């Protein structure tokens, strides 16, 4: 790669980040102006939740199973099997669950929004909305970002629960631990300082998923090729952003909850 090209790439990257920030600013501005598209928000919440539920459920179940199956032998070596419930629950709820389910949702929701808004852009549907006196940013973008922000925490909590159930199943079959005992141990091990940062974090994950998907789709160009690009780069950028947010969140909660 020639240095000039490299320079251009870096420049474009920063331009894009600036545009994304501007887009986020516009979201907040339009969010606080009337009228609010409540009906569309509910519809979006329903579709997003509904479409990702099974995916998150299955992934969560397998996550719980695999995680327990693989940790068990190691803990057994030290005679520490009784630590299983607390270890598994803390790792899943604090870190693994939110990140993995958010990544899954990035693939499902973010790319879906990117493709949907992208194709609406290239087939002039967004212009048609504008012309018929409805602000498309409000109707399409604000509702979607908000819906993703609200639904992601719910999906993550749901996924966590299924994952814990999967793990409990392993303990029950392999270690003769009753479900009741397992969950008593889980809730003993968990503190609010585990749950609150994880939940707050998942709101930000949801926001990122909605924001990037909408940004890519709404600004889609170059016809049908652009739609594929929009949906593809929505997933890539979202995933990257999720890890950045995760890093910041861990950093901040470390300072706040000093453990």
């Amino acid at each position: 790669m020639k240095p000039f090209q490299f320079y251009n790439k870096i420049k474009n990257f920063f331009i894009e980040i600036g545009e994304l920030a501007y887009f986020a600013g516009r979201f907040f501005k339009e969010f606080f102006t009337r009228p609010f598209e409540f009906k569309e928000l509910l519809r979006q919440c329903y579709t997003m939740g509904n479409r990702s539920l099974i995916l998150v459920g299955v992934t969560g179940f397998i996550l719980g199973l695999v995680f327990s199956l693989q940790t068990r032998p190691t803990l057994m070596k030290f005679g520490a099997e009784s630590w299983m419930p607390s270890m598994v629950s803390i790792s899943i709820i604090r870190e693994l669950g939110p990140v993995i389910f958010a990544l899954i949702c990035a693939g499902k929701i973010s790319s879906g929004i990117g493709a949907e808004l992208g194709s609406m852009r290239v087939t002039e549907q967004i212009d048609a909305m504008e012309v018929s006196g409805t602000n498309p940013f409000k109707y399409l973008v604000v509702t979607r970002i908000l819906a993703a922000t609200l639904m992601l925490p719910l999906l993550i909590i749901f996924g966590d629960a299924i994952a814990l159930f999967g793990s409990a199943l392993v303990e029950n079959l392999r270690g003769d631990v009753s479900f009741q005992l397992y969950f008593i141990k889980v809730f003993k091990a968990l503190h609010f300082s585990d749950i609150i940062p994880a939940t707050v974090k998942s709101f930000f994950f949801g926001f990122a998923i909605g924001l990037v998907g909408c940004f890519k789709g709404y600004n889609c160009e170059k016809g049908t090729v652009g739609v594929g690009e929009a949906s593809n780069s929505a997933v890539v950028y979202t995933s990257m952003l999720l890890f950045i947010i995760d890093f910041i969140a861990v950093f901040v909660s470390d300072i706040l909850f000093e453990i």
Partner: protein
Amino acid sequence: MEKTTNISPIIEIKDLKKSFINNHVLNGFSMQLNKGESLVIMGKSGSGKSVMIRCLIGLMQPDSGIVKIMNKNIVNLERNDLDNLRTEIGFLFQGSALYDSMTVRENLEFPLRKKKLSAKEKETLVSDALESVGLPETVNLIPNELSGGMKRRVALARAIILKPKIIIYDEPTTGLDPITSKEITQLMKEIQLKYGTSSLVITHDIDCARVISDRMILLIDGINYKEGTFKELSSSNDKRIQAFFK
């Protein structure tokens, strides 16, 4: 019948300029649409017709020039005023632009969202509009279940549902077979008579232009190259004009 100057223009464009980086699309285009009139604008593909109407309706910011609809300069209009003004205008997009995720009914109801209407009033408007385009039975279908010609008609129904004073058609017959094109043209004529709208029609379709136009403008090199009735233009000696009427 000479057009007198006291007829008030409902749309007025003066010296419109628009370029994209090095691509100078419009270089001072002017036109006016009078009340009740049908004006056809013709131009080659890529000559900037769509750009011109996008500037007209506020989807694109012109570089310079005046764009007035009903005596309001739309370039620096507040969002709310612009939205209100837009309810007076029906717009038929080049590719129909129906909302994929909505049924035909929801598509037609979309422009009515701002109006405070009862469910019954909405229903009447929807069925009236669909009746006008001859597709009353499609109300519960989604756009994917319609043919291209039907989509165009539904889009037309959506454009006229608010009984607009102006309808702008961007290539209403492009991509349709000759028979369907004729039907759409006929429909445009009927709607014009029924609602008394002023129409601005962008088209390549000579037959459509012949039937619809009271007056025509040829858009060449980004300016209003020639203006006149269909007869005047089709019998012109200018080679560049003749090319349109082959």
